[in-house]
């Protein structure tokens, strides 16, 4: 298992190297720079050139690329031009917000989606199935930013139950943290909940037709044990794989949701950096996002291998 994990980790390194190169290339291709943000709309080309010089933006690309990789090897992601702080520090400060949002959403999506999927499979063809799959379809189809705004209107403006936005750190106030996370995580979770529900339903229907399930039922085992212990456990193997993809999608979706709910997370940091062309933050942020994505997929692969021994022994 350890060897398998080490192999997968090594395989991730070239991916990250390519991502870092691409993130560097993208910011060089896209026109505009941070000087535009600082100088204002009526600045002349001369004023912009002076500002660029002062901000160190006039060095040739190959010098900056060499500097980027050199610093990266030392674990340094550079310094934000606008925030005047290290990119790594800026990301670390915001990471708890994004991870809170992503994993709370993942938990909501997984638990609710799986439950809906099981219900739909067990009651296949009945009204409960249609309601569950209809709910999943609606959740899957609605854009998360729209849902976010609707949630704000209903739960904050009309009912006054939850805040419209902002973030409360868990360490400061756990209840406040939960209140600040609930709406954005729910808005983010709904689309992936639909995905989990459909995957679970399909996997459960397949498993429920298996001989060992029929045998368990024939032995007189209670239905909830047959479904919960025998069927669901096996049906979850493909669903767990989807969890990796879902985590990546949620991480991407967090970018928008963080803006809707004014959450100071990594997504908002990167969006702001793109809008203002704060190159070091864009590069560092993209690299970090790719790293998290790779790590989550690695964890999923390891979980998959743990659930299904045929995978770690390469016998599938």
């Amino acid at each position, binding site marked *: 298992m350890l060897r398998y994990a080490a192999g997968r980790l090594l395989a991730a390194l070239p991916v990250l190297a390519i991502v870092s190169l691409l993130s560097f290339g993208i910011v060089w291709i896209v026109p*505009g720079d941070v000087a535009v943000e600082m100088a204002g709309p*009526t600045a002349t080309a001369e004023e912009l050139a002076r500002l660029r010089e002062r901000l160190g933006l006039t060095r040739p690309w190959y010098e900056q690329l060499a500097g980027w990789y050199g610093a990266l090897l030392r674990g340094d992601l550079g310094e934000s031009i606008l925030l005047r702080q290290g990119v790594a520090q800026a990301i670390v400060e915001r990471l708890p917000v994004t991870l809170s949002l992503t994993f709370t959403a993942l938990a909501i999506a997984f638990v609710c989606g799986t439950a809906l999927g099981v219900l739909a499979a067990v009651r296949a063809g009945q009204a409960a199935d249609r309601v569950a799959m209809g709910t999943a379809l609606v959740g899957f189809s609605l854009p998360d930013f729209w849902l976010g705004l609707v949630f704000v209107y209903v739960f904050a403006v009309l009912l006054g139950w939850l805040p*419209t936005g*902002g973030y409360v750190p868990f360490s400061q106030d756990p209840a406040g943290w939960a209140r600040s996370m609930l709406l954005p995580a729910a808005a983010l979770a709904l689309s992936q909940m639909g995905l989990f529900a459909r995957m679970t339903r399909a996997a459960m229907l397949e498993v429920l037709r298996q001989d060992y399930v029929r045998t368990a039922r024939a032995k007189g085992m209670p239905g909830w044990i047959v479904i919960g212990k025998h069927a669901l456990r096996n049906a979850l193997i493909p669903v767990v794989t989807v969890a990796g993809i879902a985590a990546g999608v949620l991480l991407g979706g967090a970018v928008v949701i963080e803006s809707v709910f*004014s959450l100071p997370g990594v997504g*908002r940091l990167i969006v702001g950096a793109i809008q203002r062309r704060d190159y070091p933050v864009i590069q560092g942020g993209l690299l970090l996002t790719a790293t998290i994505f790779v790590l989550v997929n690695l964890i999923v692969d390891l979980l998959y291998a743990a659930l299904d021994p045929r995978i770690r022994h390469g016998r599938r």
Partner: protein
Amino acid sequence: MLTRRDLGLAAGAAALLPLAKPALAQGARGTVVMAQQAQPPSLDAQVTTAQASRNINLHVYETLFARDEAGNPQPDLAEGVDVSPDGLTYRFSLRDARFHNGKRMTSADVRASLQRYGRVGGSAFIMQPVEAIETPNATTVVVRLKEPSPGFIAGISSPRAPCAIIPEEEAGKDASRIEVIGTGPFRFLEFRPDSHVRLTRFGDYVQNTRYQGMDGFAGRKVANIENIMIRFVPEAGARTAGLQTGEMQILEAIAVPAAQRLRNDRNLVMHEMMPWSFQTLMLNHVQPPMDNPVFRRALQAALDLEEIMAISTDGLYRMTHGWQHPGTTYFAGDVGRPLYNINNKDRARALLREANYRNEEIIMLGDSSFSNHQATIVTAAEQLRSVGINVRTVITDWPTAFSQRTQRTGWHMWALMLGIEPYEGPYGVVGFFSGHQPVQHARDPVIDDCQRRLTTSLAEADRKRAVSDFQARMYDQAIAIKCGDVGIVQATRAQVRDYKPYRIPRMWGISLA
């Protein structure tokens, strides 16, 4: 006449007073939460022209002169100024002021701040005429100019990138590297990027007793609020929701449709500001066929500017032709008016024929970062197509569009909202179209001459004539197209008392009920 009932109520109120006192004190001070769309790119007031920074910095920093409610320069940290008859020497006497670090402001701080502005300032050009800055004593600063610069006081009083007075010890530092220390009525506490800035009342603030009340960015600034939190909320709907729930008390701007929807909400007050900015279409004169003034006049004749304004502003606009706001010193009256908003398609087609237009592609550049810009380009493009002009719209984000417009090729027409520049007066507006790198990329000798007369004439009448000639030339040669004036709506909760809308939401002078 007092009745027994009144006396009874008064007695009851007096009995409750000890209990109510802490609540009243808290109400009189309290915390105001203001929401704005963007976070500040810098809290170094001198270096950035961003509105998001201005909203914060003008509570913390002050300048020698500041603009009053009508946009005219008035003494702020200066008691006043004596200008020599030749216009070359400005002698500022300073009023008593303290920095947030407890230090008393002296002429050395002012000199160091002005010198730094010349190095890193967002409008550093205003210091170009300065030859020397002397400090004969602690409360006097003498600025000597190489040549007369009648716009000097206007420049140092502009809130665009304020020429803020900071402690001498900070003035040696590079852009955005300073500690946030000013002399303003509020001092800086905390900046949490992507979240908020916190300010608190500066207890040792020295009010400017020359004034009775607040007056633009000048006047007597009385801080009745203990704490200010400025939250960065990018989503307009979330800002509106925050105002409705009471999580936020002030919005720097609310979308016009939302303002209309909430107009009758008794908990909220909408404050309309007109004018806020100009909506314009800039033209690139070096890209054929735009190099031909007859073709540019065809565009001028083809456009229905009222339709553009109505669509791009959600209805909050004013049809005004002036390149200065009506009612201000340099407003040039009816000059150019007959050529404003002509909206005559036949005349446009005739001018196209006269210009020998051969269906060359016209690139119309806009950006989606500002909805007004995009809507202006899209609407104008349709109108130009209707008279037979071959138009291609290019909509990018703001940095891309801005970068493109600094190039001589790749665009013919560019939508831009000019906000702070017209508010500042004529110098920024005329300067935008003159000098070595005018926005239209081709120098116009008449406009250059207007700029020279504006920036060197000591008599105000001559400067006014220069602005009037500039406006005449703008219309006669169709240098650029002014579409109209755009307004904004600032919004507050009803509990915010004595709020007056202005270029930023001002937190001095207000109180919480």
